[in-house]
Structure formats: C-alpha cells, structure tokens
C-alpha cells in the first residue's frame, strides 16, 4: 500500500525524529533490502495505516494547522546541527531550505512575525521580484543559488514558507514545484475531519479475499534466519562449594569506582527525552460493587418424623397351638422344668417373710442433702430496696394455684402513737401488698394498693384472683387481679424482657410494676373499730346464714369472709351482691363511676359493705373487760368435705367448675347469684370456734397471789390461767335468743382460759387432726385438743425468746415450726422429743414475724418467713422434715390420745382431791365440834335421787337417739328438780 502513495508522502518529516542511529543489537544479520526497520520511522510508516501515512504531508505542508498537535516538538529545537542537516535530507525534491535576511524580508514584505507568522507561514512572491533581487544584489542575494531554478520556474509566483523553528536548518523554505505550491496554497483541510469521522463511525470489518500487494515479501524479508551458530559465553560465578572444589579459579574484589572504566562495561541509566510526554488526562473507570451482601432464605422445617414399621407379633393359630402342645419336646421341657419351678417358687415363699433390715433403715435416700441434712436451707429471699425499709412483714400468702408466686404485706412497725403522728405520711404513700415471683427477685410482679397498712389477707381459695385483706383501720379491702393474671403467670413478662418491643417503641408502663387499686372497702361505721388481726375465707362447702346456721353452699365457691379485731368483735362478711341488688351498668356509666380502671367486681360493696353477722365476745364474768380477739380458728377447712353427706360430696365434685369464679365483673355477666333458698342445714358442722385473745385486763401480781391463796388446789390452775395475757376462748357463732328479750345476740363464751403469757400470736389447727390446736403467745406455746378444756396436751417451758408465729408441717403430723423474736426458727418434732426443739436455726438478724408453708411438689416444700426488715426468706424444708417416717401418723395419734387420757385422769384426780378435801374439812369440823355432822334431810335425798334419775333419762335418750329410735328434735322428759 505504501507503494501506491506519492513518493513525497512516504518520507514524512516525522520520520526524522528518531533518526539517531540506534545500535543494531541483533546477532542475526538482516537480509539485504530496506534499512533495519524495527526502529526506523520508515518501517513504521509502512506498517501504519493510511491515515497515519497521509499525516506526513499534512504536517509538512500545513504546519500552521497541525503544529500544535503533530508538528515536531521542542525536541527538535534543541536538536543538534547534525540532526538538522539530516532533517534537510528528507525535504522533498524542489523544496529547498533558504535563509532570507531581515533586509530582504523587508524588501519582499516577508518580515518574520509580521507578514508571516508561525500559523500563517506561506507567502506567494513574484518570480520577477526574486530575479530583480538577484540582479540587484548579485551574489549577495539570498536567492542567488536558486537563480536558475527561479528562472526555470514555469509559473509566475513562487511559494516561500516560513520555517518557524528552523526545522530544516534555515528560516525559510522555497518551493519550486508548482504542484507542491498548489498543495501549500490549498492545504487539504478535510483530512482531519475525515479522520474524526473514521474513528467515530465504526464499520465492522468485512472479510475480503486477500490480495497480494507485496507484503508477504516484506514479511519474508523480516524473518530471522540463523546463518551461523549462536555464540556461547560461559560466566563463572563463584560459589562456596566451587571455591573449595576449584581453587584455581581466582576471583578478587575490585573497587568499582577506581577500576570501573577498565573492567566494567555497563549501560547506565539516562533520561530518554523522547518519552518526556506527560500524561495529562487519563480515562479511568471504576465499577462500584458491594464487597459482600447478606442473603437469607426461608427453608421449610418439616416436622421430624420417626420412621416406623408396623409389625405384628408372631402367633400360633389355634390349630398350631394344639399341635405344638402335642410336641414331645415341649412336653419333655415342661416336665423337666417343673421341678425347677417348684423349687424356686417354694424358695420364694420361704424367703419372703424375711426382709432386709438395711433397706428399711434411713428411709429414702433420694433428694438433696439426704436424710442426714436436716437444716433449713435458704432458697431465695425477697426484699424491695425502696419500699421494704423499716417495714415489717405482716402476712405472707402463697398463691393458691400459680406456682412460685407469693404475696407479702408490709406495714410500718409503729406503735399507735407513732402511727397517729405519721398519719399524713401514711396517707400519702399507700400501703402495699407485694406480689413476688420466684423468677424475678428484684422487682415485684404487682403492687396491691391498700387504704391503710394490711395486717392480714388471704386469696380466695376458689377464685385465686380475688384477695381479701384486713386493714389497720378496721376496714376489709377487696382486690381483683384477674386482668393481671397473665402478667403473674408469664415468667418472662418481667421488666428485662426488652425483646418484646421494637427499639424506640418500648412501652415504659409495661416494664413498671403496675399498682392495682382495691376494688372495694367496707364501710367504716359498720366494720371493726380496731385493726383487723385475722381474716379467713369461709370454706366453700358451707355458708353461714344471718342466723348463724351453717347451710349448704350451692354456688360452691368461697364468698364469705370471717374477720376478727381487738374491738371484741368477730364479723362475717358476704361478698356476693344481694339478690337482685347490683344491676349491670352500661359502659358509659362504668366509665363515669370508674375513673381509675378498677374492676367493678365488688362495686356493689364499696363503702357500703356491712357484715351480715356480728359476734360480740363478752367476758363471761361481769365487770371484766371483753375479749380482744387476735386470732381465731374454725373447725372446717377448705377442701374438707366431711361435713357434707356422701351424695352431696359427689354432686359437689361434679358441679365444681374447673374455671371457678363467681366473681365476675357485673358488666360482663349480670347477677349470677344462685338462689340459696333450698340450701339444707348442715348438722355436722360445728358452730363453735376458738379465739385467741390479747388480755388487756392487767391484774397486779399481788392480786393474783391473793386469788391464788384463797382458791382450792384444783382451782388454782384455773385462777392462775385467768390472769394470763393470752386467752383461749371457745365460742359459738350462732346467735341465741336472749332470755329477757326477743333479740338475738351472741352467746357468752362456752369456755375461756388464759393459756399463754402474752397476746396470742398464732392459733393453728393441725392439718392432720381437726381438733388439735397449736396456740402460741408470749414465750410459750401449747397444744390443745378441742373440747378437752381441763388443760393443754402439751405445754412448753417458756422459751428464751418471744414467739412470733407457728406453723404446722403439712406433711409430717408431728412437726411444727416456731419463729422467734431473735430471728430464729425452732423446729419441733413430737416424735423426736417434746421438751426441746429438734433443730434451732437462725434465719434473720431481725425478728421474724410470719411463717407460711407451701408444698410445691412431692420433692419440695418451702417455708416463707417474713422478718421485721421487710424481707421474706424462702427456706427449703429438708427431706427429713418433709418425709413422714414410718407410721408417723399412728405414732402421733397415739401420743395425742395418751395425753388426752392423761387430761381425763388429771381431771378425775382434781375431783377426787376436792372430795377428799371437803371430807377432811368436814371431819375436822366435826372433831372440833363446831359443826354437826351433816345428816341429809329427806328433801336433799329426793333431789339427789331425781338428779340421778334425770341423768339416767338423758343417757337413755341419747342411746335411743343413736339407735335411731327417737327423733332428733324430741326432747327428753325431765323431771323438775323440786
């Protein structure tokens, strides 16, 4: 293709740029032909495309246009003379370098930088003008050497080109080729544009059939062919092994600076000016892509299933069985094994009566601690940092159904005067019942707000969400926590459970323990006038009418509450609305009435609640101060249905709703009250109950001694008791008609006696013996049996510390726990010893105030002990105190029976002694002759005989009644005494 170009174009000015002769380092010789091309510009131009080839003349002829872009660069300016002369070689023929002096320039109007500039560098000059210049100046003319050419020039004007940077050695170029002149005059300006077009429009190359234009010859010429063997050089490098192996080779250290020229040939670094191009712009691109990303996919977790195979056990059919029965082998086998069996069986029968004593020793070894460990272990303790300070625990109740929930009431440990002084403070900060969960010992689950300090409270046994409490101010308070039952039940619903909420949307109130307001309080005028000291729900199997009669409870839920207080009253309260009483409220009404969001369960009671039965405990002797009850105990217990007849028990079990709950919000369900009209009177229920009192009638010791001396030996005991602080009173709750009026009033106490030397703090019935009571007060506690009033079955010597509470073990009949003022707990085991506690253990450094025990599971029993620092200690009962030992119940029953018999005997002896004493006195009097011997008169004999006869009638009647021969309501015919 280069061959087709004009010869002027093949040799471009650019090709001179790299004209410095480069050493030919090839070891191979080139073929004859064009000069070495690897570095030569000519070769390069051959290889380049058409566009680059046409560039050459363009640059040459219109340097004005292309100088900036493509003209020889400043490199040329500093080119050496030799280089410039060589540049001139490449000038096309008929184009000559010429020097025009400044004078001539002016004459020809060709002044540099005025008429001609770098950009506009051509000027047409008339041939005549030049010839005239030659003529006038002769040899001095700048054009003299071209005289002939000027003369021969066919056209009139000659083109002079200004060589701005002396590229071709002189300042001007003169053209003697008319074609070239035209080219200079009209430079092909379209070429660069075409070039641009070419690059922009990409035409995919189309395959063409190859036409030979001689390039294959060029390629053939380019090929290197080795025509001599390659030279080999051997360079020895000293190595340590070589040193030792060939010591003949001598190497020595040479100072590179001194001997450099002699010994070292090196090609030093130099700055290649050709590559001085600075990169000004750089196209660069970056692909932005995330380094990693997270992805998730949901996989379906199918329920894992066990592979199963159904199989059937192999059996013989009837026929096969009969067939195999005839098998001789079988027969043999049975016959042979017969003796073996007989022997084994007989051996067993012989050996069975003997058993291993070791197995019976020590009982069950399972469980923590084993049988040896008999100490109470602290399981957990609850104490509120803020609210527990200076507070004493007044009552502890375990939640009847939900495990691990315990309610604790706290009260300020203040005397009456302190309380009066701090009245304003107590009002502003409401008293609270804390509902603790074993899951969270830091924050209580619920706070129950009370109008005043709570002395005692109890969960309703049938509706565990209902709580009744007795206040210091004598009011009975009701709470309904049904709405919060989920909160209590949910072990994770505590304040740390932040996961429940999206961050930023936490419901602060959720994490705070809710304060629950009471639903209802009793009316102040009709309630107690002193602090309520004991409160109990009447068991669900009976209810008490306003006449005090125990009747069947058809609703089968606990609804009545019994309370006692210092004001010598025992009150009975009904929580159900009166028949047809509370009418359901509309929603609007509810909102008006109920601004605090309090459940309306007991709305009908609020502030108007009156006890339906009021018992006044009068002193049996006139002039004495009435009893001040502190604790009471009724015979019936929750869940004990013995009082009901057999069939009633069955219906009771049947009717019992599993959900329970008669206390529904009246809005949700209107009057659910069941008519109690048909309720039968339950004869078996004992209307007598025991009351433990605090005697405020202090009698001086002197007086006591006076009474004591004056009394008979048999009475001494009684007299002594009368002046004790804590009395035990046997009382009937059934009101009786007074003799002088038609009014019903509480009967006088059937029996009363001072039993303990301080206010009664606890009066508890044994869970195993309904008629056995444990009474504690002051420094002593005693065990009494109902209706055995001659004395206690067991009484202790005064302890060193005041007793604060007692609690029976629910699983061991002979075990009970006694808490003391010094923070210790004594464990008494009647089977072990009766004169001293089996275990005495210190629990708290402040006085314990309340004990409450709960059987969590067959393996766990927890005792909650509250102290006067507001802390509740949960103690785990060791296995030895939990697990009844062999026939313990029998042993304890026998013990109590023995003690009861002893009481009878003592009583018998008292009578004997009394008789003896009277006889003695009579005899002494007779002897002295002061009084005549007593001779009974006829009247006296009659009276005595009538009395005897009446006794016999009574006895006969009772026998007949037992046999069912007499009606119950019939009364025996009694002969009047006189």
């Amino acid at each position, binding site marked *: 293709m280069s061959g087709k170009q004009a010869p002027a174009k093949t040799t471009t000015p650019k090709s001179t740029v790299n004209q410095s002769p480069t050493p030919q380092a090839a070891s191979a010789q080139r073929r004859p032909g064009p000069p070495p091309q690897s570095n030569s510009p000519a070769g390069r131009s051959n290889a380049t495309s058409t566009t680059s080839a046409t560039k050459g003349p363009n640059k040459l002829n219109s340097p004005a246009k292309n100088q900036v872009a493509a003209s020889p660069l400043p490199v040329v300016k500093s080119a050496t003379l030799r280089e410039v002369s060589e540049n001139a070689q490449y000038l096309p023929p008929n184009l000559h370098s010429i020097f025009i002096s400044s004078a001539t320039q002016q004459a020809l109007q060709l002044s540099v930088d005025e008429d001609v500039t770098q950009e506009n560098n051509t000027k047409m000059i008339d041939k005549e003008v030049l010839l005239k210049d030659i003529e006038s100046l002769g040899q001095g003319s700048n054009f003299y050497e071209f005289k002939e050419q000027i003369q021969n020039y066919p056209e009139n004007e000659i083109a002079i080109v200004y060589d701005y940077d002396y590229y071709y050695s002189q300042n001007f170029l003169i053209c003697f080729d008319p074609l070239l002149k035209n080219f200079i005059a009209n430079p092909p300006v379209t070429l660069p544009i075409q070039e641009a077009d070419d690059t922009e429009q990409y035409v995919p190359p189309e395959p063409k059939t190859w036409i030979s234009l001689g390039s294959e010859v060029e390629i053939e010429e380019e090929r290197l062919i080795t025509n001599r063997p390659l030279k080999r050089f051997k360079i020895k490098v000293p190595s340590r092994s070589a040193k030792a192996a060939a010591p003949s080779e001598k190497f020595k250290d040479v100072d590179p600076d001194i001997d450099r020229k002699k010994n070292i040939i090196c090609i030093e670094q130099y700055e290649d000016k050709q590559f001085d191009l600075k990169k000004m712009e750089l196209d660069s691109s970056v692909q932005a892509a995330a380094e990693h990303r997270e992805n998730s996919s949901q996989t379906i977790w199918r329920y894992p299933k066990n592979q199963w195979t159904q199989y059937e*056990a*192999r*059996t*013989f059919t009837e026929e096969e*069985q009969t067939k*195999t*029965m*005839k*098998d*001789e*082998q*079988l*027969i*043999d*086998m*049975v*016959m*042979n*094994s*017969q003796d*073996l*069996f*007989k022997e*084994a*069986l*007989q051996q*067993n*029968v012989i050996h*069975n009566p003997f*058993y291993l004593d070791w197995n019976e020793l020590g009982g069950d070894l399972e469980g923590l601690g084993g049988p040896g460990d008999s100490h109470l272990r602290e399981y957990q303790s609850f104490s509120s940092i803020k609210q527990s300070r200076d507070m004493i625990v007044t009552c502890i109740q375990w939640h009847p159904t939900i495990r691990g929930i315990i309610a604790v009431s706290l009260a300020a440990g203040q005397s009456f005067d302190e309380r009066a002084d701090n009245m304003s403070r107590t009002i502003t900060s409401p008293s609270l019942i804390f509902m603790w969960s074993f899951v969270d010992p830091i924050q209580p689950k619920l706070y129950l707000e009370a109008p005043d300090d709570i002395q005692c409270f109890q969960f309703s046994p049938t509706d565990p969400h209902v709580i009744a409490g007795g206040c210091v101010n004598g009011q009975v308070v009701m709470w309904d926590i049904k709405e919060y039952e989920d909160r209590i039940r949910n072990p994770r619903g505590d304040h740390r459970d932040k996961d429940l909420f999206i961050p930023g949307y936490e419901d602060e109130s959720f994490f705070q323990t809710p304060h629950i307001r009471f639903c209802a309080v009793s009316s102040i005028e009709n309630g107690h006038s002193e602090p309520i000291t004991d409160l109990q729900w009447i068991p669900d199997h009976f209810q008490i009418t306003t006449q005090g009669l125990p009747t069947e409870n058809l609703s089968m839920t606990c609804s009545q509450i019994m309370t006692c207080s210092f004001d010598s009253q025992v009150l009975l309260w009904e929580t159900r609305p009166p028949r047809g009483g509370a009418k359901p409220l509309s929603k609007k009404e509810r909102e008006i009435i109920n601004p605090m969001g309090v459940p309306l369960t007991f709305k009908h009671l609020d502030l108007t609640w009156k006890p339906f039965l009021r018992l006044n405990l009068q002193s049996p002797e006139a002039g004495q101060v009435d009893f001040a009850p502190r604790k009471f105990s009724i015979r019936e217990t929750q869940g004990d249905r013995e009082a009901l007849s057999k069939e009633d028990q069955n219906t009771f079990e049947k009717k019992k709703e599993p959900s329970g709950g008669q206390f529904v919000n009246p809005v949700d369900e209107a009057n659910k009250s069941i008519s109690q009209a048909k309720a039968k009177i339950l004869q078996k229920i004992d209307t007598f109950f025991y009351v433990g009192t605090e005697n405020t009638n202090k009698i001086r010791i002197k007086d006591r001694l006076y009474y004591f001396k004056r009394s008979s030996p048999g009475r001494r005991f009684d007299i002594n008791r009368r002046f004790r602080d804590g009395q035990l009173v046997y009382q009937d709750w059934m009101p009786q008609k007074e003799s002088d009026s038609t009014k019903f009033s509480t009967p006088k106490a059937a029996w009363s006696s001072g039993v303990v030397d301080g206010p009664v703090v606890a009066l508890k019935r044994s869970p195993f013996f309904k008629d056995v009571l444990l009474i504690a007060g002051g420094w002593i506690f005693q065990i009494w049996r109902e209706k055995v009033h001659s004395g206690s079955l067991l009484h202790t010597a005064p302890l060193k510390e005041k007793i604060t509470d007692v609690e029976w073990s629910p699983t061991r009949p002979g075990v009970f726990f006694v808490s003391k003022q010094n923070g210790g707990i004594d464990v008494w085991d009647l089977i072990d010893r009766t004169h001293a506690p089996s275990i005495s253990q210190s629990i708290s450094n402040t006085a314990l105030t309340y004990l409450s025990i709960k059987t969590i599971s067959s393996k766990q029993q927890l005792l909650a002990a509250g102290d006067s620092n507001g802390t509740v200690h949960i103690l785990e009962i060791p296995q030895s105190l939990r697990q009844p030992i062999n026939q313990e119940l029998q042993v304890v029953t026998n013990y109590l029976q023995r003690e009861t018999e002893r009481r009878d005997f003592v009583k018998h002896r008292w009578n004997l002694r009394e008789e003896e004493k009277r006889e003695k006195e009579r005899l002494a009097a007779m002897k002295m002759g002061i009084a005549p011997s007593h001779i009974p008169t006829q009247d006296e004999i009659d009276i005595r005989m009538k009395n005897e006869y009446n006794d016999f009638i009574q006895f006969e009647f009772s026998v007949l009644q037992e046999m069912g021969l007499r009606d119950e309501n019939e009364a025996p015919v009694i002969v009047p005494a006189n």
Partner: protein
Amino acid sequence: MSSTVVSTQQAEIEETMKRIQTHKGVHGFVVMSNDGSFVRSTIDNSTTMSLTGLIRTLSDKAKSCVRDLDPQNDLTFLRIRTKKQEILVAPDKDYLTIVLQANEQH
C-alpha cells in the same frame, strides 16, 4: 399307641401347669416357642406379647453368656427378682416356659 401316650402326657402337662399355678403368688404361666410366639398363656394377650418378646431375647442373651464363659455349660433356669414380682424362666432347645410370681411384700 403313640397318640395315647401323647394324650396322657398332655394331660400330665395340664396337671403340672395347674400345680405350678396353685403355688402362692403365681399369677402367670406362659409356654412359648423359641421363635417368639406363645403356645399357651394364662395372662392377657398384650402382656404375653411383650413378655415373650422381651424375655426371649434376655434368655438368649443369658444363654450365650453362659456358653461364652464355658462352652460345655448351658443355661437351665433364670430367675429375675423385681420389686413387684419374680420372673422365672426355664429355657429349652425349642421352647421356653415363663412363670410369674408376685412379690409378697408389695
């Protein structure tokens, strides 16, 4: 002739079984073949099934144990004393007899 012998012997078996069952505390008698199916049982079906299945493997195991200890030896009788009862097992070549005796103390 032989059939009469067999029948008399069969009667003897019945007699033996009755006799064993008259012992104090015996409340079960099972005769089973060594492939696990029972021939005769005096207790309910499901209990027999589980009993035969389990006791057979145990007696096999015991038998192999005895034989491993002494190849000349063989298991003749197996007594399993439990809290509630005693299981008496008499293994034989093709058959197995199980007697259950209640433990008196419980």
